[in-house]
């Protein structure tokens, strides 16, 4: 039934990951039961021991939609319009307010979690968060079931992305983009380029290096640099602490300018930073802004991380059907290819590469957008963390971020 696909290698990777992650899944589910009540208490929620219920859908009468997303994550023209979104509005009559207000998974979650717990509107009808965070939202029962009948193009989803451990069959979530975290540098300031994460600690880069506030990406790269297989389960606090030590040393010495969310792009643009751990597609956006190939991205020799950001509809959103219509639209291969050509992330939509080969030949072979097996063998998925590890790892990371 499924034909051989261009994205085959990613798919294989993700299947392997899904198998590995099964171990931690039961553990996580265990916590969720106790979770619901405690969460309500923590938030001082009035009588909120029952899980939130989906809001009544008013999509048929209210043709609007609010979509929160990360910066540089959708095609944008010189006037700051979003061409694919404008066409969506033309086709469906649904007015979309596109908000670029996600800069960090934790911060965004921290901002809306009380509304989520109460099942109230969060200010966005749909948003795209990273899979580990989406796993948490699903575990807590904060997001609505998606109606597959409204998303016929879901058939275009790369098959291996269909059954992640946190949402088998993708009944509550749908991938937006996947991408790499790796290293990048300013080709004018660092003409020699960089090969490994260790190269970031060269003395001439002192105070000019940024790393991501996304713990799994920054620590993933550092762990890989120390020879740890971050997808496997054979490592724990000892290996993590060794990597944290490297991070802390470089933060304390001032080698690292900052541990930042998407705002590191400003530092690259202003020249405050000339190298760092970054997300693959951002560098394309930065180059567009600079007007030439100013920055270069690479997966470090020891490997980079592969992550995915995923659509969900919070319980409080009364416009789920509009959101589903939007998802369906972005799962058209033509639209997906157009977005991919701009954001330069890995599209989850099957058929986009064929479209790209015709319409955007310059990206069809781009390893950052349509990676081949060789590229993917160098990209790793951070293993699912048990709640306990998640908290311990995060606490260490935040400690370094805050300094002493």
């Amino acid at each position, binding site marked *: 039934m499924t034909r051989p696909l261009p994205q085959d290698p990613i798919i294989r990777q993700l299947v392997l990951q899904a198998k590995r992650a099964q171990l931690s899944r039961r553990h996580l589910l265990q916590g969720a039961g*106790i979770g619901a009540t405690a969460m309500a*208490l923590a938030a001082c929620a009035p009588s909120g021991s029952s899980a939130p219920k989906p809001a009544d859908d008013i999509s048929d009468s209210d043709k609007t939609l609010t979509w929160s997303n990360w910066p540089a994550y959708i095609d944008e023209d010189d006037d700051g319009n979003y061409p694919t979104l404008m066409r969506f509005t033309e086709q469906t009559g649904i007015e979309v307010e596109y908000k670029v207000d996600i800069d960090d998974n934790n911060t965004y979650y921290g901002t809306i979690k009380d509304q989520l717990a109460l099942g109230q509107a969060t200010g966005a009808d749909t948003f795209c968060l990273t899979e580990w965070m989406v796993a948490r939202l699903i575990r807590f029962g904060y997001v609505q079931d998606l109606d597959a009948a409204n998303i016929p193009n879901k058939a275009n989803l790369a098959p291996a992305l269909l059954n992640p451990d946190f949402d088998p069959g993708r009944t509550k979530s749908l991938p937006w983009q996947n991408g790499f975290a790796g290293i990048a540098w300013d080709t004018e300031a660092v003409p020699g380029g960089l090969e490994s994460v260790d190269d970031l600690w060269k003395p001439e880069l002192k105070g000019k290096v940024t790393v991501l506030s996304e713990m799994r990406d920054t620590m993933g790269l550092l762990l890989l640099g120390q020879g740890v297989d971050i997808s496997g389960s054979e490592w724990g606090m000892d290996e993590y602490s060794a990597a944290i030590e490297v991070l802390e040393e470089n933060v304390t010495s001032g080698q690292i300018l900052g541990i930042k969310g998407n705002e590191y792009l400003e530092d690259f643009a202003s020249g405050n930073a000339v190298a760092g751990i970054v997300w693959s597609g951002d560098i394309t956006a930065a180059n567009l802004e600079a007007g030439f190939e100013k920055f270069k991205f690479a997966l470090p020799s020891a490997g980079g991380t592969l992550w995915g950001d995923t659509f969900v509809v919070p319980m409080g959103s009364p416009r789920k059907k509009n959101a589903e219509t939007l998802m369906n639209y972005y799962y058209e291969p033509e639209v997906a290819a157009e977005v991919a050509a701009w954001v330069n992330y890995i599209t989850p939509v099957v058929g986009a590469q064929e479209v790209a080969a015709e319409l955007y030949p310059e990206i069809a072979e781009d390893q950052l957008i349509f990676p081949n097996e060789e590229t993917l063998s160098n990209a790793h998925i951070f293993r699912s963390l048990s709640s306990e590890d998640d908290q311990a790892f995060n606490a260490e990371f935040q400690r370094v971020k805050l300094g002493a």
Partner: protein
Amino acid sequence: MAFAAFGSAPAGTSGVEQAPRRRSRVALILLAPGLAYLALFFLTPLVSLVLTSFQAPVEFGDVGQYQPAFKIENYAVVVEAYWPHFLRAFGYALAATFFALIISYPLAYFIGVKARRWPLLQALMLTLVIAPFFISFLLRTLAWKSLMSDDTPLVIALKALSILPPDGHLTGTAFSVIFGLTYNFIPFMTLPIYTTLERLDTRYLEAGSDLYAGPATTFWRVTLPLSLPGIVSGTLLTFIPAAGDYINASASFLGSAQTSMVGNAIEANFLGLLNYPAASALSVILMGLILIIVGVYVKRSGTEDLL
């Protein structure tokens, strides 16, 4: 606690006033909305904050799940982990208050006393002091970040003059954080001082010189004491928010890991770690310390009736 600390001043008035009952009922009705407001938006969150600060994690719970408890160790843990952030917060706030005062006083003096003859100039200058408020606080701070970035003329000039070492930065340093705090709070310092100086009777100054006091002595013995209420409220309006500020010191704006203040620690615990008890305990300690500092300061400067 807040009420107890400053409750002594109004106590004196109750003996003088023996209002009839009916009037006190009217007063009570008039006060009711204010009291209800305070109870709802000040007292409730405060109590909730204190309760949260004692919470303990749910056993085998997920991220961000806590249950009511009386875990007083939370306080010891955060003090141990974040005492440098407290020191930095109060150090930076003190420095910023000092610099804001040094800059604002002459400014307020000029607007309030010297410019009296030209009301138009006075109005214009006051507008200029307030004008920054028309632009978002975050945007202004970001603008300073770009102005102090590494490749800007300012930094290049400072490096050429050897004021800054070749590998030095302006952003992410204690300097840039204190600069940002000072800049952002100057209007809060200028306006109260201006309002007291604006009422200054210049005949006092003439009297001072008639009594053979030089300009310096006149300033020290006449102008300064008369403007003290303005200085006290200006310093309070600057110091209190500056000590709790987390924007200027955050790595996204003018700071770095080396400059993070207690506000950043609260933010990281609340939003990053979802460790609400730790964030609450830090807030309670910060509030307590500020209350003590302000209480002592107000007593010392003899301006209790300001409060």
